[in-house]
């Protein structure tokens, strides 16, 4: 189910808000969990089984790690002491949790990629007889990367002593399945919402700010991301593309992915606020970054925080010497890239980012163009990002390289390429791109905009909501980009 759809806005959301707020406190998590399963099962009912099993494993592992399996339900569960040695059972159940989650993710997300690469290597070695040549493909369950990370964070937090284990299964099921952020994040770490699962306040102001977030998130998705996506699709899917058009297409894609994902995050935060939860900021005007290092402090914060706490630091972070730090950095970014999708394009994308971070670290935590004026630094960072987004968007490596050649003016332009001009430079698309530039570089991001809501802002928010709904009626199905990760 997509937030920016008739079904969600005019059927699922009203029903959810009504049921949730009519329900007594004890039943709210039950109803939220059930509706979240409906929300998730809408894409494919069979995926629900997978999420249920994953949740069940982590719930049981959490209780074993907290040494509460079979204990009285009346006793409050203590937080494990930090830094203390854990028993063999505790370590075993952490490993069980990590392995089951990673196995699930690995199988459903990387099986096709792995077998494809294996076959390619066998073919290259002339060992055709050893090829697998599987006739079936594994379907990627929606949002599996998000909910496995989220579910894993529970057992890790309990093990480390960062959070208290949950005894009430409904609360845990609710945490994992919570529909606002289930399929495309932000990744909510357990320690961040553990307290809110016990107590949280529902206030009119909170709900009102949620309305503001939802309106602005929807506007970002429907009014900006979708038209930008159309331009990007035209440029990336055409047989050949000229230099100007290729730049136009990659700028459009950079805007599309930002507005699409940050719009989704805004809507997730909004729906959280409407049900009393507060989720942390996921984007902080990333295209205002003056270096790639800064970009990663502003882009998809929930993922970068997760990777930092659960990958970079356990690998040793920057505590084991310079060489090891660079290695950790590269490994974290490569795996971060691979987390996005099972394709060499994502590995390269992660590799470029890891390389840039290492380079900037060598430069004293700053960009190699640090001498430039602020605006130029922002521009250069954006151009670097444009090249990296090409790997993110292109269907495969040859297509990405061909597109980059077009951006550098080295591509072959065929007869039909100029037809693109008849589409890309329509007032609708040009206007959307100009508006996107204004929103990205001149307007505050959603958190800042909604910090102080005045009457003119109320009008802007309601106008954005109305425009988004009106525009929604004329658009075809446009799922969010991050649904496939």
């Amino acid at each position, binding site marked *: 189910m997509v937030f920016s*759809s*008739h*079904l969600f806005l*005019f*059927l699922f959301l*009203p029903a959810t808000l009504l049921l949730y707020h009519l329900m007594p406190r004890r039943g709210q998590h039950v109803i939220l969990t059930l509706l979240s399963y409906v929300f998730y099962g*809408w894409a494919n*009912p*069979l995926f629900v089984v997978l999420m249920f099993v994953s949740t069940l494993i982590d719930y049981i592992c959490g209780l074993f790690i907290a040494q509460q399996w079979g204990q009285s339900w009346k006793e409050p569960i203590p937080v494990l002491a930090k830094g203390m040695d854990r028993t063999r059972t505790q370590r075993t159940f952490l490993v069980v949790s990590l392995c089951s989650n990673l196995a699930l993710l690995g199988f459903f997300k990387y099986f096709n990629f792995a077998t494809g690469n294996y076959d390619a290597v066998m073919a290259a070695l002339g060992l055709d007889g050893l090829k697998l*040549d599987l*006739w*079936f493909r594994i379907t990627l369950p929606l949002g599996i990367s998000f909910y496995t990370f989220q579910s894993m964070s529970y057992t890790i937090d309990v093990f480390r002593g960062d959070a208290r284990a949950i005894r009430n299964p409904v609360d845990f099921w609710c945490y994992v399945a919570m529909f606002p952020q289930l399929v495309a994040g932000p990744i909510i770490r357990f320690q*961040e919402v553990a307290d809110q699962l016990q107590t949280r306040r529902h206030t*009119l102001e*909170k709900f*009102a700010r949620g*309305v*503001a977030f939802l309106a602005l998130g929807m506007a970002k998705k429907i009014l900006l991301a979708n*038209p930008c996506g159309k331009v990007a699709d*035209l440029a990336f*899917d055409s*047989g*050949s593309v000229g230099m100007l058009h290729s730049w136009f297409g990659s700028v459009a894609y950079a805007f599309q992915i930002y507005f699409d994902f940050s719009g989704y995050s805004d809507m997730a935060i909004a729906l959280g606020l409407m049900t009393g939860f*507060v*989720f*942390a*900021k996921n984007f902080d005007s990333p295209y205002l970054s003056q270096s790639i*290092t800064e970009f*990663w402090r502003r882009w998809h914060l*929930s993922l*970068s*925080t997760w990777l*930092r706490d659960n990958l*970079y630091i356990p690998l040793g*972070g*920057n505590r084991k010497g310079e060489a090891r730090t660079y290695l950790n*950095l590269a490994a974290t*970014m490569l795996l971060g890239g691979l987390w996005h999708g099972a394709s060499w394009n994502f590995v390269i994308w992660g590799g470029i980012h890891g390389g840039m*971070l290492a380079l900037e670290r060598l430069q004293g*935590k700053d960009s190699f163009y640090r001498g430039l004026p602020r605006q130029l630094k922002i521009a250069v960072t954006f151009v670097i990002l444009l090249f990296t987004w090409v790997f993110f968007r292109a269907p495969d490596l040859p297509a990405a390289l061909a597109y980059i050649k077009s951006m550098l003016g080295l591509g072959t332009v065929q*007869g*039909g390429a*100029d*037809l*693109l*001009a*008849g589409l890309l430079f*329509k*007032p609708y698309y040009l206007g959307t791109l100009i508006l996107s530039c204004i929103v990205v570089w001149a307007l505050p991001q959603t958190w800042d905009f*909604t*910090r*102080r*809501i005045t009457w003119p802002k*109320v009008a802007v*928010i*309601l106008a954005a*909501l109305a425009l988004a*709904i009106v525009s929604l*009626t*004329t658009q075809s199905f446009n799922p969010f980009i991050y649904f496939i990760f």
Partner: protein
Amino acid sequence: MKSNHPTFHSSILPPIQSSSSSAPPLPSREEQANREVGQTDITRNQSRVLVAVFLLLIFSIPVVQQIQEWRAGRDAGPGTGVVRMARLPWTAIRDMRQAPGVSAGRKLSRIDRVFRYNSFLLRDIKSFEDDIVAESFLTRNLIPPVQQFLTGVLGAGNEKAYVGRGKWLFYRPDVDYAIGPGFLTDDRLVARAKGGSEWAAAPQPDPLVAIFQFRKQLAERGIALVIVVAPPKPVVCPEQFSARYDAGAPTVHNPSFDQFVREMKDPNLFFKRWEALLAPYRKVPEAKARRAWHWPLTEALRELEAAKDLILSHPVIFLDPAADLVAAKRDMGAPPYLETDTHWSPPAMQRVAVQVKDLVSREVPLPAMTMRYRREAMKVANLGDIAVMIKLPADQKLYGKQEVTIQQVTLGEAQWRPDRHADVLLLGDSFSNIFSSGDMGWGEAAGFAEQISFELGRPLDVIVRNDAGAHATREMLSQELAQGSDRLAGKKLVIWEFAGRELSSGDWRVKSTPMKPGKPRESHFLEIADGGERRVTGVVREASPAPRPGSVTYRDHVVQVHLTDVHADDGQPLDATEALVAIYSMRNQVWTRAARYRPGQKLSLVLRNYGEIDKRQKISSVKSSLLPGDLELETPCWGEELAGADGGTAGTASGKTSGWPELLGVFGVCAGVFLALAIAERRERRGAAKKAAA
């Protein structure tokens, strides 16, 4: 200086709490967020307005929708409310039980049952979600004005149509053909061959496989084949799409088009290409390969390899009229395509007919024949199919009707009619149907078949169907042969016309198109005699899918319905209890009730002989969807609902209004309640303040 403790300021990540004891601890992201939300600077009234308007919006729209649906009654369709949503798991069970295969007694394993059920559930979910959008009064009311603004002011078009220069409109798949990747590149072929979904098989992506199969099939019966590719509009008129071209610009074909022509002329190139592409799979054991994406192609290519000599000795005669049409822009003094329509103009079509005649005269020896056909000029005006697809308001002024002069072909006093016994057969799509079938709105008896017949001076047999030129007409021919009617008997030439966009997006099926004459089947389905008419009642077992209005170029569509428990309403006994019924599901881009037939639904219909209606109304040329399996070989009856000849249009005719009065009503009631609550709260506050003061 190296530090011994974790500091992450130089890491990939956002700065976090410092471990230095002197530095104040930084709040976590969640703490920051909590603090942020707690400090939202908003007055209570602003909060109320935001929340009230939002809730009004999301609650009133479904409420009004429900009011509308209740008022419209069951005829308007299965509904789009929570009740239908909650019933989806059960409707999927019902659909699964009634679907052929399960009910026929085939045993499925438990796992298979689960997957099958899941696939039915997914289909119903998709259908429900589509209905919500299509049936929404919001969509119905907002699309026309919004689309007018987007098209007229911003030049946006929609997902089916692109806005060109001036008053020109373009069909998106046509543009995609011209700007898209080469349709014969390995990546593209493999990607398309691996496509498909739970309900639709992957397409056969290579047009040459189908063309050579057809060439072989016809060569075996000594019939020549001429292929005519109707060029997509942007190929010939790119200057009407982008200012970067001028009127003399060469054709803008897909990058693979030249290769396509080369391989058609020299089939060895085609065989070499596929040999290289399938080489990595040669060693795969057949049992394994049978389930792989390349198996249908491997099988088809094996068949072609076996007949390689025949194919090489009987070349395909090919006509690409694009270059001539570009040159014709000057001669004709008018663009060769209609401004707001997908198709060519009458003079352009006549010009292509002349080219066909020249080609046939040169390449195919036909016995001499001179029929005395005449042409009569006639003016017709219509709004093009692309303009209809944009869904503008009925009274829009953006695009007017275009007037063209068609040349009606007559024989004596009668309009031109196809002749089943002619030695030339034309297979064509909407490029052949336009100006020929009155349903398309551009006049009749002046289409491509009529012009070719006029130029050749001989009668023509015709099989035409709008859309899907890659396979539809070959399948129709194949089915007729399988039913025992040898349509190819006595034929010397087949002219196969299809739209150029099919090359890159068509499904060039080869498995469903054997050209083997069969024996007439014994049918246990109801048959209506010529001139007969029966009133019957039956239960829908299965209905073929109907496209949504606005999503396709054609105006009319026919679905097939499998009826069971059929009994007569007129008292006379029937000789069968099952019937296959063809019935309009869309007329002039508006759904009829037949578009919504669901398994289990009871219907009362008037049934007539299909052939008789086809002769009068050219039903077979209307785009239709068929039911799969053996039903494809049955001859349907023609059905009409008792309510009206067109089956009754759904939606507008079923009592649905604009919805605005209801919306205003709901808004009014909600605003009243909200006001009352606000006044009550204010009084309470005043009372509390007075008490406090006291």
